[in-house]
C-alpha cells in the first residue's frame, strides 16, 4: 500500500464500541465532530485505508477507519448479529463513541451496504459519500464466490480449504493488474477462522444486496448529497456498469471508472484514488462550525 509515501502520519489506536474492541486508524484533528469515515469490505480491514486516510487528512479533515467486528483484529462479542443491519448498528455505536456527528463516508465492497443502511438510519448525519466499487445495487446477482459462501456445507468447505496460496491465486486471478503482494498477504493474515465464519454468516443473511435500492434512492436523491464514485472497470465481483447508476441516488455524483483497475482500486491505483478523494474532499464546503 502507499501509506508509506504520504507525509501525514496515520496514527493507530483502539476503541471499544458495542462490546467490540477494535483497531482505529486515524489522522487529522481528532476532536472534530465531522470526520471522513472509511468502511472496509470483505475481506478487508482498517488497514485498507491507510493511504486514503492520509489523503483525506491532508485536506484538513479528521479521517479514520475501523476494523468491523470479526474482521481485521476485532473480535465480536457473543451474540453479535452478523448482518448488514447488525454491522450498521455497530458502526453507529462506534461513531457515537468517537464523537462523530457528521460523516463523510468512504465505502468499499460490503462496506457499501453497511454504510448505506447506517445512512438510512441517520440521513442527516451524512456530509458526503465516496463509493469505491460499491453502492446501491439494484438487480444485483451475487458473484460466484458469494454464491459459494451462501451455500451450506460448500461454503464451509471452501473456507476450510482457502490456504494462503489458494487465496492468493483466487484473488489475483480476477485482478487485471494483480494486487501488491503485501496487500494480499495482510488480507490473508486477517482472514482467520473468525473472519471466515463472519463472512459466511454475513453473506447468508444477505439474500439480496440490492434489496433496499428503491427506498435508498428515494431517500437520498432529493438530498443532493455530494458524492464521488470510483470503480475499477475490471471489477470481477461488482460490475462497473453500476458506477453510472449511482447517479440515481446521488444525481450530482462525480463518476470515475478506472480503466486498468479491478475490485480494489485503492490498492492497484493508489495515487489516482488518493488524488480523486483528496480533490473531492477539498472541493466540499468547509466543515460545519460545530466541528
Amino acid at each position, binding site marked *: 500500500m502507499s501509506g508509506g509515501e504520504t507525509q501525514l502520519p496515520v496514527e493507530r489506536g483502539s476503541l471499544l464500541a458495542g462490546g467490540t474492541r477494535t483497531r482505529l486508524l486515524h489522522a487529522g484533528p481528532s476532536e472534530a465532530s465531522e470526520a471522513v469515515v472509511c468502511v472496509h469490505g470483505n475481506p478487508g480491514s482498517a488497514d485498507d485505508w491507510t493511504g486514503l486516510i492520509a489523503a483525506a487528512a491532508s485536506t484538513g479533515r479528521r479521517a479514520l477507519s475501523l476494523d468491523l467486528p470479526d474482521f481485521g483484529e476485532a473480535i465480536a462479542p457473543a451474540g453479535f448479529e452478523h448482518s448488514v443491519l447488525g454491522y450498521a448498528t455497530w458502526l453507529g455505536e462506534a461513531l457515537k463513541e468517537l464523537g462523530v456527528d457528521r460523516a463523510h463516508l468512504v465505502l468499499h465492497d460490503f462496506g457499501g451496504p453497511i454504510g448505506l443502511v447506517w445512512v438510512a438510519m441517520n440521513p442527516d448525519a451524512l456530509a458526503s459519500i465516496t463509493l469505491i466499487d460499491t453502492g446501491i445495487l439494484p438487480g444485483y446477482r451475487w458473484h460466484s464466490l458469494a454464491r459459494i459462501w451462501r451455500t451450506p456445507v460448500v461454503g464451509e468447505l471452501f473456507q476450510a480449504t482457502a490456504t494462503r496460496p489458494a487465496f492468493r491465486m483466487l484473488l489475483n486471478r480476477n485482478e487485471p493488474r494483480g494486487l501488491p503482494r503485501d496487500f494480499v498477504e495482510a488480507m490473508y493474515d486477517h482472514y482467520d477462522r473468525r473472519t471466515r465464519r463472519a463472512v459466511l454468516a454475513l453473506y447468508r443473511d444477505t439474500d439480496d444486496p440490492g434489496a433496499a435500492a428503491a427506498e435508498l434512492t428515494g431517500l437520498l436523491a432529493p438530498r443532493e448529497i455530494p458524492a464521488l464514485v470510483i470503480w475499477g472497470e475490471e471489477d470481477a465481483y461488482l460490475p462497473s456498469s453500476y458506477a453510472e447508476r449511482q447517479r440515481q441516488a446521488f444525481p450530482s455524483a462525480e463518476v470515475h471508472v478506472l480503466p486498468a483497475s479491478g475490485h480494489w482500486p485503492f490498492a492497484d*491505483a493508489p495515487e489516482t484514488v488518493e488524488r480523486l478523494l483528496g480533490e473531492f474532499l477539498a472541493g466540499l464546503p468547509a466543515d460545519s462550525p460545530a466541528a
Partner: protein
Amino acid sequence: MSSTDCPPTIIDEEAAYDAVVVGGSLAGCATAIQLGRAGLRVAVVEKQPDPGAYKRMCSHFVQASAVPTLERLGLLEPIEAAGGERPRVRIWTRWGWIEAPPERAARGVNLRRELLDPLVRGIAAETPGVEMMLGWSVERLLRENGDFAGVAARNREGEERELRARLTVGADGRDSRVAELSEVPVKTYPHNRFAYGGYFEGGAPANAPDATAWFLDPQWCAAFPTDNDLTFYAAMPTKDRLPEFKKEPEAALVRFLSEVPEAPPIRAGRAIEPVIGKIDMTNRMRKPVAPGLALIGDAALATDPLFGVGCGWAFQSSEWLAESVGPALQGNESLEQGLERYRRRHRHELGAHAFFIHDYATGRKLNPAERLMFSAAARDPKTAAIFDTFGTRQIRPQQAMPRMIPRAIAVNARHALAR
C-alpha cells in the same frame, strides 16, 4: 505555396495526363512526387482550395515502417527540419512496460498534420510534371473502352473540366469518392471503439519525445509528444464510455488519461485547440485496383487508428503503386500488369496486418495468444525487440509470430517457475 505555381485556369481542357490523382493529402501528394520525378504528367485534384489544408482528426504518427519511404522520397529531412520528432514507442500492459532496448527500438516520425500536409503538398507542387488543382471536386469518372480513364472535376465556381488520364488514382481517404464511383468491392469490419484526441502544451510526458500507448485492455489511450513541445493525447475507449466524452470532450479526455497507471501529466497541460472525436471508424478494406484505376492510403484500407498505421501506410502504398505502374506508364508493359502487381503487393504487405487489426477493433480484450506475446514482451527485452519490429509494422505477422511465440512460451515458463 502551391496554388500560385499552377493556377487551375491554365490547364488545357484537352490535356491528357499519365495519371490523375484524386486527393491532395499524404498518399496523393507522395504518389504525384514519385510519378512526376519519373518524368510523367500528373494532375492532383484536391477539393480543399486552401494549400494549407490538413486532416484534423489524426494522431499524425508515422510508423517506422514508412521511414525508408520518406527517406527515398526526400521527405525525411524537411520533416525533421520542420520540427518533426523521431519517437520510439513504449507500451503499458498489465504485465509491465514493453520497451525494446533503445538501440533496437525503431523510430517513427511525429509532425503535426497542420505542418506535415502543407509540407508534402508544397514539395508535390514544386515537382516538375505535377499540376495541383486545389478547390476541385470529382463529379464522375471517365471511361474509355470500359476502363477508367480520368475524372470530370468541378471547381467552386461551377466550372467543369474533363481530365483524361491513363491511370486514375483514388487517394481520397476513408470515404473515398473515387472508390464509391468506381464501385470496387469493399469489405467492412465493425469498430466498437471511438476516438477523442487533442493537442496540449505544457507538461511533457515521461520519456518524451517517445510515444506512449496504454493497452488497458480493452480500453486504450496514448500520448504522442510532437513538434513545438506539444503533445497529442488520444483515448480510444469502448463505446459504452461514449456519453461522458460527448458531454465534455476535453474534461473526459483529461480525466481518462490522468487515471491510467503511471499517468502522463495531462492535467499540467493546456489544450491549444478543442478536443475532437470520431465515433464511427468502421474498418474498410477495398480491392485496391480496377481497370485503369488504383486506390492508395485510406481509400484502399481504412483501418483502426489505434495502431497508428494510417499515415505510414499512406506513404508506403503510394510507393508500391508508383513502383508497380512505373514501367507501364513509361510504355514498357501493359497497365493491367502494373496494377495487378500493385494489388498483389498491397495484399502481401498489409493483408495479414489488417486481419489482426480488424479483429481487435471489435472492442474485445486481448486473446490468449496476444496475452502470451504482450506479457512475454513486457518481461523479456529480446521479445520486446521483436514485438517492436512488428508493432512498428516493419515485419508482417507471418514473420513476427514464428519468431515471437516460441520465445514467449519460454519466457513465460521461466517467469512462472521463478515465482
